[in-house]
């Protein structure tokens, strides 16, 4: 745990920089994961709900902040029930679609309008099942806001040929953070629209600055086409790294709870090293490296996020009890619209 404490001479609460730390280990998680996979196979998928809880518990319980770990609280049975209902719904949906398409289309439209509701429920379930220092998180958003960030903002982004995409992304992040709370304390999100535009404009600028000359070069000297292809791949990978790292940094640096803030410093070079190592080992082990790859990624991202805590973190209190079923979450997984 790297606690660098900045002391101030006055009596005012000090700002403490508390690093997030992931203490999981690739080998240890591999053992848990492979047992989960085997039990899932021999139980013909029934164990998958228990496996999900065990996998999630491993990642939550190994994430530490200020000496305390996070927890994942979901009951496997609740997840199992939600999963069974969602799978039955998917089967009915597919059968109706192939036997009587008009009714299938009607069901599809109904599902379209149900998705914002399910996304809300899924986030509510996941927050409710996450705890830190025995205080649970909460999520509560209106259907209208969910509908806007799922459909309307992305649609506006596409209709304006991407000009409004940064705004759509910002609205999505605001939806995620501002509707979340830790116990009774609401999170806030402070990002500016211009930060989002900066990321998108940089991508466009770099893409054009490198793309156009390369294109011109191939037109002039066709023999250099393989070289241009290589440059294209590198630029593409570079842009992915840039977008990933700047979005992670932008997102976490703008999350606020009470007077506490966060900051993230993910760099493109470090992210590239993690991604390349993960891809390399995953391919040569035919996917068996996947659990260790996930650990490596989570450990890296956690290590680059810091909480700027003003004073003590003890003054949070638990919210009222509430019940959220796992149905929304499992619909999201089965119909593949989860966030």
């Amino acid at each position, binding site marked *: 745990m790297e606690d660098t404490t900045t002391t101030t001479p006055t009596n005012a609460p000090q700002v403490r920089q508390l690093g997030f730390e992931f203490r*999981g*280990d690739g080998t*240890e*998680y*591999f*053992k*848990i994961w*492979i*047992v*989960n*996979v*085997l039990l*899932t*196979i*021999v139980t013909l*998928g029934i164990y*998958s709900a228990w*496996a*999900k809880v*065990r*996998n999630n*518990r*491993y990642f939550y*319980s*190994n994430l530490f902040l200020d000496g*305390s*770990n996070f*927890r994942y609280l979901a009951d496997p049975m609740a997840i199992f029930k939600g999963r069974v209902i969602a799978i039955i719904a998917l089967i009915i949906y597919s059968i109706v679609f*192939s036997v009587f*398409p008009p009714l299938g289309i009607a069901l599809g439209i109904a599902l379209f309008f149900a998705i914002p509701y399910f996304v809300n429920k899924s986030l509510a379930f996941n927050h409710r099942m996450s705890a*830190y*220092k*025995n*205080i649970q998180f909460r999520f509560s958003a209106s259907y209208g806001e969910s509908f806007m960030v799922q459909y309307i903002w992305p649609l506006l982004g596409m209709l304006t040929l991407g000009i409004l995409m940064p705004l759509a992304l910002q609205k999505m992040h605001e939806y995620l953070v501002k509707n979340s709370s830790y*116990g009774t304390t609401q999170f806030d999100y402070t990002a500016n629209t211009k930060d989002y535009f900066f990321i998108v404009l940089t991508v466009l600028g770099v893409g054009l600055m490198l793309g156009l000359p390369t294109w011109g070069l191939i037109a002039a000297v066709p023999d250099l086409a393989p070289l241009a292809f290589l440059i294209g791949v590198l630029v593409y990978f570079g842009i992915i790294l840039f977008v990933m790292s700047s979005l992670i940094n932008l997102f976490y640096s703008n999350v606020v709870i009470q007077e506490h803030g966060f900051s993230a410093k993910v760099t493109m070079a470090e992210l590239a090293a993690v991604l390349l190592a*993960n*891809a390399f080992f*995953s*391919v040569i082990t*035919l*996917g*068996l*490296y*996947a659990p260790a*790859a*996930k650990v490596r*990624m989570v450990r890296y991202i956690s290590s680059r996020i810091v909480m700027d805590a003003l004073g*003590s*973190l*003890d*003054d*949070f*209190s*638990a919210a009222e009890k509430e019940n959220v079923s796992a149905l929304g979450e499992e619909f999201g*997984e089965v119909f*593949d619209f*989860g966030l």
Partner: protein
Amino acid sequence: MSSSIKITGHYLDGKSAKRRAALLELDPEPFHHIGLTIEADVDSGEGTALQGAARSFTLSFDDLRIESRLGNTPREIGFGDEQLFVTDDNDAVDRLVARFGTTGWLHLLESKLSFVILAVVLTVALVGSFVHYGIPAGAKWAAEKLPVVTAEYLGDGLDILDKTVFDPSEIALSRQQEVRDLLEPYLQQYPELDAKINFRAGLEANALALPTGDIVFTDEFIRLVKHDDELVAVFFHELGHLHHRHMMRRVLQDSMITLLVIMVTGDVDTVDMVTGLPTLILDLAYSRAFEVEADAYALEKMHESGIELENFAVIMQRLEDYYYEGGDEGEGGFEIPAFLSTHPATEERVQLAQQLIERYRRTTH
């Protein structure tokens, strides 16, 4: 005889985020009393003196909700309404649990190296045989059971191809009619396949079969053919794809693989990059298996119709030469490794033809 167990950790009351040091103790005799001592809260202000004072109380084992062990993650013991005792001392908690006779077997599986190796071997064997035998057999069964109506809802595939890659054929109508007349008797032999002959320009020298029953010959292909029997050979190959419902089976197999990946890894986000390549390689392997099946069908039907099987080998070789010399695109000499190809190597296909020729000769003489 058994000693006492002392577990140090932290106590959280579930109402506030305040954490206090605590000690959980199991007396040596009698076993049923578990004491929890919570230390005084040093930071606590004066107003909360009562809440922050040191206290201790007695619990019975049945009051405790002890989480199963998971690697070396902190162990949580819940009790009362929302109260929690957290400790890093997993071994001590295991000893406490063992006193009352209910040890978890999951952690044992997850920590013993021999179990883990066994799990890896079993998983690889089960997934491997499922991918190799289970998925193709399941897709074949499903494709045969599915009503033909479903295929119609896949949409008129030829329409889409016409808008994207195909242009109207430039082959003289008289030649088109010749080909139609040549194939008409065979079409009538298999009315259940509902095959229709089409001519299109584009896609170099090619022939393809769509789930709707449309068999398409490209102009380049018609020009490449030197003998009617060669054309019939390729026609039977495409008819084989229709007969075995290969398009439908490929769609089914691909979705079954995706389902398998999600089920096994239980994770949709992280799998994309990691499993994308193996999934693609599998899809290509399935595609090659279908080509072999269609080849075998073509050779069998040629034999039944009294067409020399050598024609199959000849047209395959000519197609290979055509692509090797580069068709229109000038990409000659570029070899794709076998495991990344949609079709088996021509050598293998010609070999299959030779084998069948031998076998038919032996049975007829």
